């Protein structure tokens, strides 16, 4: 076991997978450049050679199709894009091709590809560099959608994604790349489709994913001090979603707040509220609630993003409101960090 950050954990998973299986290849814009996609692809080319690790033309759509074709002959591609927004050019190959191949050809072959997409917020990333589109991908049958929060899960779930026989959308929040944690050595796969209860509690269930799980934990720590016990579920996999864990928790707490880093309408949080309301209506003691991004493109100026993101204070305030507590003190206790548009003061950009 060693301590490392999320980006290093991704890098370790890639090394491990390529070492284990010579059919794993890795490509994407910048994977062999000096910055190595925020360090996540460092040394791969050196260790595994330019046949298996290569930079690519700026052709997101075709290169997704290339991964499909290679997969049909047993090659497992890990494709990387520095921003999810660029990958929108590849929707045809992803949605009409990769997601449906196994089904529409009568389950005769499969498309084991992993597509790493980086999502984020802040630092003036603006309207087309900061989207969190997990809901889009989870809408498509045949795709798996993964959003690990911790370095340990980043490594374990990337390994599981690479060796999964299906196309997996692997979403990394840029604000998590520098987070540090203990990570086990070797081939430590974390099964897809299993959520993790990162904090047990009895008063309310908070369901979150990726960076929202971090905000949820901060809120839960604060609420603990106010005498409110939150159960925090880190979904880890968005599709297929671990409904059992969500339903069990809501049955226990009777209250649900679903958090989402994506836009509100059609969000994963909305889906969670719908399913819980339909299946656990009798267990609910209050109306379930959602905190997601407003249905507004993210602006660029730091003046415009003040108060724009969902953060721990919003979560804590909402929870207290749902439980009928006085919220007057929350924003005084949990003030917006300054600056508000970076993961920590140590961060000096660029993204």
């Amino acid at each position, binding site marked *: 076991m060693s301590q490392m950050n999320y980006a290093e954990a991704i890098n370790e998973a890639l090394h491990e997978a390529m070492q284990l299986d010579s059919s794993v290849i890795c490509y994407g814009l910048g994977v062999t450049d000096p910055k190595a996609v925020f360090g996540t692809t460092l040394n791969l080319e050196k260790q595994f050679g330019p046949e298996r690790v290569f930079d690519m033309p700026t052709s997101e759509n075709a290169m997704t*199709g290339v991964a499909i*074709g290679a997969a049909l002959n047993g090659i497992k591609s890990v494709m990387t894009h520095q921003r999810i927004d660029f990958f929108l050019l590849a929707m045809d*190959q992803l949605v*009409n091709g990769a997601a449906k191949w196994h089904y529409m050809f009568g389950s005769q072959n499969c498309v084991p590809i992993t597509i790493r997409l980086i999502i984020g917020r802040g630092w003036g990333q603006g309207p087309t560099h900061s989207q969190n589109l997990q809901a889009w991908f989870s809408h498509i049958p045949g795709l798996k959608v993964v959003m690990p929060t911790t370095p340990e899960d980043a490594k374990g779930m990337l390994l599981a994604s690479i060796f999964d026989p299906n196309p997996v959308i692997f979403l990394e929040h840029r604000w998590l790349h520098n987070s540090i944690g203990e990570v086990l050595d070797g081939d430590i796969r974390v099964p897809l489709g299993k959520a993790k209860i990162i904090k047990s509690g009895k008063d309310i269930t908070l369901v979150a994913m990726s960076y929202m799980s971090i905000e949820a934990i901060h809120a839960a720590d604060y609420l603990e001090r106010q005498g409110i016990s939150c159960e925090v579920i880190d979904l880890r996999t968005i599709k297929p979603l671990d409904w059992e864990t969500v339903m069990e928790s809501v049955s226990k707490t009777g209250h649900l707040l679903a958090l989402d880093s994506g836009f509100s309408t059609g969000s994963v949080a909305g889906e969670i509220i719908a399913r819980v309301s339909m299946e656990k209506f009798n267990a609910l003691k209050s109306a379930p609630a959602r905190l997601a991004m407003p249905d507004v493109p993210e602006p660029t100026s730091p003046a415009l993003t003040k108060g724009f993101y969902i953060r721990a204070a919003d979560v804590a305030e909402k929870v207290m409101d749902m439980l009928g507590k006085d919220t007057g003190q929350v924003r005084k206790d949990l003030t917006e960090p300054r600056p508000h548009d970076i993961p920590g003061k140590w961060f000096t950009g660029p993204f």
Partner: protein
Amino acid sequence: MVYAVNNSSIENLLDLFYHMYRIRTVEEEIARRYSEGKMRCPVHLSTGQEAIPSIFALTITKGDFAVSTHRGHAHYLAKGGNLNAMIAEIYGKSTGCSKGKGGSMHLIDLNVNFMGTSAIVGNSIPVGVGLALSSKLKGTDQISCVFLGDGAVEEGVFYESVNFAAVKKLPVLFICENNLYSVYSDLSVRQPKGRSIAKMVEAMGIDMSFGNDNDILANQQLMKKAVSNVRSGNGPHFLEFSTYRWREHCGHNFDNDIGYRSQDEFLEWQVKDSLKLLESSLTKDGSDTTTKLSSIKEKIDSEVAAAFEFAEASPFPNQSEAYEGVYAKEEASK
């Protein structure tokens, strides 16, 4: 066009006739029966376009990969795809090549490395390029053949795919069947007048050849040469052939009356019908060849009739199968 029939040419000509007649017979039988309403999916027939796939059938090896388009019946058959499984697929039966999940536009036969067809214009092009990348990574001599039409050349993914194939010098044979129409839109409203598709692609840095549909033997030589170049590691090659679809874009009817193309143009292509010209060359001198042709036709006619009987007699898939196969299970990736 008259083909010289002699001892050295006859076998090849008969083989070409076999494939062309077989594709024509299958497509026309689908057209004949389509109005019965039992084939309940869109069909894009290749009647009139048999020559190129037939040449392909005689040029390519079983281990080579191929992908194709919505108009893919001919390519599937030419690659050696199972006829019964294709007809059953169009009938939506469980014995279909995609178990009823795909229909006419999603044909596959892994026994002959026919890797799939797509209903989305241009969609299978990068898939074919990816298959070529896999051959290169695995160090085999398999080439990957990508069928496309003139419309697909207008898709961005086409340029992306050609570019990547060129950068990596991948063993890809692009086979463009230019039949002048994308659905009902004439080439003249889609691409600048006088610009050659093949020449444009050549400018992207790959070899090309262009052939007219009415000289089968010349086209056969072009394809042979291209395949051998690609196989010997010289990188991708783009072949463009001019051809013509006889029937409507989608369906079993003729549609010259609706006003997007002229009857004269249609008749002009009927006159240079490769199948008829080949047949008349073969039957010109001597009853021996005529007898051989009759026996080929008889064999194919009964094979095709049997395929339709097989499809009709096959069971439909269970309703519950609609919900199965969304995800591949772990074993499938091994």
